[in-house]
């Protein structure tokens, strides 16, 4: 029989031995974790809560706990207990920070589903912001996931920029004092427009894919045999939409500048607008000149090969004519699918002095029209339409595009109405007069222009943009 002391000594030696053995194992573990990007902390930013929780629930219990919490989050969402739901979701990510679906699903859930449940736009904004921050948190913990980065970008771009309340939400974004939220992930500057942030995050995702990173394809799961293997959703070869998003964001930004796309923020023209449209053109060219590959294979030099496709070739007849039939087919098809000629030509047209001037005149004319200053409106519209006509003579694809025809048609319609108010006839030589017929029955307004949506701008909203007035204090207290 061993004495008590002897037993304790043996335990101590065993403990020491086990501890020492980890020293040899550690470098390998570290190497592995670096390889698959499973590092738990960036220097100086240790998530202690997550670490402790994982320590407390070593092994399989973590999955079970995450499962229970997920169900609880759904229950809480059903009972509209939003804040408890958010903290529950946060706990899941602390348990399993590399479980990408939580980030993707709950980030979307917070910014898309929870935000719509709230009535006041500033509450909606808070929840969209929570969703985006949640996704960004996910990106911080999974830096090599193009999916999560793309989701972040999409929420900045789409949820803030395309919601029914976009004109208010974008204003709230502009006024937000939280600089971290508005900081560009690439150049580190603070931007006031969600489309700018969208562009940078989209670009970041594209860059990551170009650098060959694909968290789910080559990450942890590659060694595991799963029945329904998780697939990388974004940035797979041939993903046209994925690569076009930086250009789309930049275009949206430039277009937003030239109207009151945020409540109470006047439009911007001049060099700034020209410059942003120039950047949009660059982004489109970057997209158009990216080497895609045909889906099918053809025989070249006796070997079955895929052929290179540059979408931009569709707008360059000389290059296009030199392509093989197969290349022509795909170039044409993809260019049409992405409306590439329209976007490229539009950027080209809008970036010119005339383009910006015409837009300015349309904007000023519309404002005058909405405030019943018809002589000014007639004058501005007339000048604008003439410049616009001259410019679009040189931009056939843009001129003939349906979207542009509707846009320009609306201006002509307002011009005609303003003339009517003044009791004068619309001059017969007014350009684009033929479009009037197209838009006569169309009463839709541009949902991203506050001048259109709220005819008197910000003053139309009682109590500013926030939903409820603060509670009235009891008099005399």
């Amino acid at each position, binding site marked *: 029989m061993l004495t008590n002391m002897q037993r304790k000594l043996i335990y101590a030696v065993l403990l020491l031995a086990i501890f020492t053995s980890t020293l040899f194992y550690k470098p390998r573990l570290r190497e592995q974790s670096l390889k698959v990007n499973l590092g738990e902390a960036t220097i100086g930013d240790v998530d202690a809560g997550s670490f402790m929780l994982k320590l407390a629930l070593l092994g399989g219990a973590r999955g079970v706990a995450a499962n229970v919490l997920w169900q609880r989050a759904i229950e809480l969402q059903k009972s509209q207990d*939003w804040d408890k739901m958010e903290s529950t979701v946060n706990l899941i990510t602390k348990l399993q920070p590399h479980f990408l679906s939580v980030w993707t699903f709950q980030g979307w859930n917070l910014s898309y589903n929870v935000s719509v449940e709230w*009535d006041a736009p500033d509450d909606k904004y808070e929840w969209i912001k929570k969703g985006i921050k949640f996704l960004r948190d996910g990106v911080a913990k999974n830096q090599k996931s193009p999916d999560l980065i793309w989701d972040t970008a999409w929420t900045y771009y789409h949820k803030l920029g395309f919601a029914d*309340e976009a004109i208010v939400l974008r204003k709230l974004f502009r006024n937000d004092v939280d600089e971290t939220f508005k900081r560009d992930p690439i150049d580190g500057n603070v931007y006031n427009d969600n489309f700018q942030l969208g562009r940078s995050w989209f670009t970041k995702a594209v860059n990551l894919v170009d650098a060959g990173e694909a968290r789910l394809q080559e990450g942890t799961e590659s060694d595991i045999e799963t029945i329904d293997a998780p697939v990388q959703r974004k940035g797979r070869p041939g993903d046209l939409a994925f690569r076009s998003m930086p250009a789309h964001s930049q275009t949206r930004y430039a277009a937003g500048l030239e109207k009151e796309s945020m409540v109470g923020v006047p439009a911007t023209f001049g060099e700034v607008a020209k410059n942003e449209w120039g950047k949009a053109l660059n982004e489109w060219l970057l997209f158009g000149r990216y080497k895609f590959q045909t889906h099918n294979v053809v025989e070249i030099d006796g070997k079955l090969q895929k052929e290179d496709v540059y979408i931009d070739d569709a707008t360059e007849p000389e290059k296009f004519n030199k392509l093989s039939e197969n290349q022509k087919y795909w170039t044409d098809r993809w260019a049409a699918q992405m409306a590439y000629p329209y976007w490229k030509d539009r950027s080209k047209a809008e970036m010119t002095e005339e383009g910006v001037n015409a837009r300015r005149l349309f904007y000023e004319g519309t404002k005058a029209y909405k405030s019943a200053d018809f002589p000014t409106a007639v004058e501005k519209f007339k000048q604008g339409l003439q410049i616009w006509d001259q410019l679009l003579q040189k931009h056939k694809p843009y001129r003939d595009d349906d979207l542009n025809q509707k846009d320009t048609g609306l201006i002509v319609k307002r011009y005609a109405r303003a003339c009517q108010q003044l009791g004068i006839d619309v001059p017969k030589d007014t350009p684009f007069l033929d479009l009037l017929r197209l838009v006569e029955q169309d009463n839709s307004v541009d949902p991203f222009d506050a001048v259109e949506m709220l005819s008197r701008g910000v003053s139309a909203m*009682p109590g500013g943009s926030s939903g409820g*007035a603060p509670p*009235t204090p009891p008099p005399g207290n």
Partner: protein
Amino acid sequence: MSFSLPLVFLWAQGASAPESGPGGVPLWVANALPWFWVWGEPMITEGAWYGALITFTKVVGLFCLIAWVLTWVVKANSERIIVKAKTDFLDYVAAFSLLGVFASVLVGVLQSTERLGQFDISGFPLPAIMGAIFTTLLLIWVERGLWTTVARYGDKGDRLLLGGMHLALAFGFAIALVFRFLVPEIVGSWRTAVVSGFRWGVTYMGLLALCRVSWAVLFEVLALRPKRLYAVGSLAVVESHRRMWAPVTVLVIFAVILAFTHWFLRPPDQRPAEMGRLYIGTLNTLVSLLVIAMVTILTPISLPQDIKGQTIYTIVSKPVRRLELIWGRLFGYMALVTVLILVFGGISLGYLQSQVKGTIDETETLAQELREKDPDRSKLLMEQAEQLRTRMSARVPVKGVLTFVDSRGKPQFQGIDVGQDSETSNFETRSFVEGATPSTAIWNFGIVQDPLDPKVNLDRRVPVEKLLVPGTIEAIENQAIILEYIALQMKRNAEQAGGAEAAKLASQGTDRDAEIAKLRAESKALQDRAAKFEADADAAEKANNLDEADRLRREAAALHSPPVQVEMNFTVYRTTKGKIGEPVYAQLEVTNPQTNQPPFRDIFPIREYYTNKKFIPSSYLVGSLGALKCEVRCISPTQYLGMAESDFYILLDKGNFGVNFMIGLFGIWLQAMVLTAVGVFAGTFLSWPVAFLTTLCFFLAGQVAFVFLQEFALKSLLGGGPAESFIRLVTHDNQMSELTPTLGVIVAKTFDGLVMPLMGRLVYLVPNFAALDVTNTVAEGFAVKPETVFYHTLLAIGYALPFSIAGYFILKNREVAA
């Protein structure tokens, strides 16, 4: 359940002849019958306040019966009375009957799965007859054991009880027969008469057993001495300190977790309003977990360890009663829990004070800073600070009765169902009023007819006296008007009475008139003073003396009662987006139905998921006698406002958060008390590991799985009992589809048929711990009502007392010093 009880009572009261009931029975019999029914049928009780008490007594009685019979059966077994060395004919019959009971369940299952045809013998299904026969045979065997053992070892009380129990059973059958003849609405057939007779008889047996137990306990209670209780209690405290330094350990763990709470608990950023709720919820959970863990570990270990370590010799050899051993321990542990909860409560309050109050200040400072730069956000932050403050109070709401008027102007119980599932925290479903239509939600205060049952009047009066500050204009006016009401009533009485009575009433009336005139004069003087203050304030303002104007206005306001605060939580349902950024507007209209005062109206924007606050001038309470009519309409066309009864209330008092928080912790104290009783009870007859696990299971079953147990008892569980569910689990079958009646499934269902009734009864045994928890009310910033505390205390005692007494009997009959 008291569904048909009124029927019997009506029948009893509405007897045709004053001296006799229907069928010529004397009236006293007719009046007594309903009570026999209420006390006999386990599933029925009275609708009045004592209804729950009746059920409690019946349930405890049934458990007493089971315990008494089991004790004697065990005794009979240990004394070799039942199972003798040489088995006789009756033993074989008993063994055969056991198999027979199993067979009857099997036949039932086979019939339900259509493997066997249905056989009915004079209306009774075959399995029921089989079950009855075999159970009777088994009971005969038990009877023999009982009679022999009680005759040999029982005292007078036991023998009396045994005889009485048989009489009680016979009485049950007799009552059922009487019901069969006199109240066929309740006992409709002979079959029901037999079944009801048995049920009622057994309940009466239980009540007799309860009397016997109470008699025995009464003497034990009378013999209790506080000194000895104190001694045993202090021993429990000392012991728990020695054992793992339990209280100190728990305190240290609490402190450590609290120090790092912010690691795990991130208050929702941008929404400090939620911080209070999150923190209060977490702190309560933490306190509950620690206290419960301590109690679960300490209490079941104590007695078994004493018995095992033979230290119990020292105690039982002293003149200490066994009940003192149990209750002394209970008191000792509860003293410890009390101290711990007080300390936890103190620390938690301090923590909340520093964290949440700090956040309120921070939010307000930030809001001030942003006032110029980002006014929208600044306003939002101010609102959130206000919301946070609301949560950190103990509001006492006065709720009205909600009815609706639909968009065509017709009165309705419910508003419009827009298909949006929205529930309040009280599980009421919200319904909606349509914008820019006559659709209205009306909250009536006062003595209001229950919209669902016009025979019932609900007392929802606004406590006017508490809201009007004595000595203010409104309070004096109110007094005067009430006197006027009385005067008017007296005048009417005088007119009716005539003669000397009228003269007497008239002289009283003169005094009253003088008092009314005095009050009116007093009020007038105050009103003049207030008007003068206002006039002076206007003059001071004109002279640009703003401070003076402000002071004068305050003085004027001090002469009035403060306005009455109402709070609202409405949801918004939009059919169109409307003008982007524009909120949905509501109109509030408050009328005092007793006076001709024009209604108070206010139009305001609704903010969803926030508490909207409004102030009504206190003059609307004057002469209202507690009655008010509050109407809410939606102003914005094509939009809807959703509301339930508890979404609108008058705020009586903001209360004291600290006190309310401690009351919340009292819920945990009650949980700990019940668990201590369970723990000590388990310790009286189990070894410590088993006792510990039993206590833990009781807690988990009561806290987490109580709803599940209820479903079990009501047989509303989808997918059958445990064995059947297991088959479904393994075969990936869903819960709804009928399983193919294979041999396995039939065996499983038979097993479930035997086990389920027993497990379903657990619902009466397992304490409903979750019901004692009031954390949510505290975290929402509402005061826990005194009656809630009272009911919870009763509930906890209702569990703790039977457990501790059961423990006493086990300890008494156990050879602790063996």
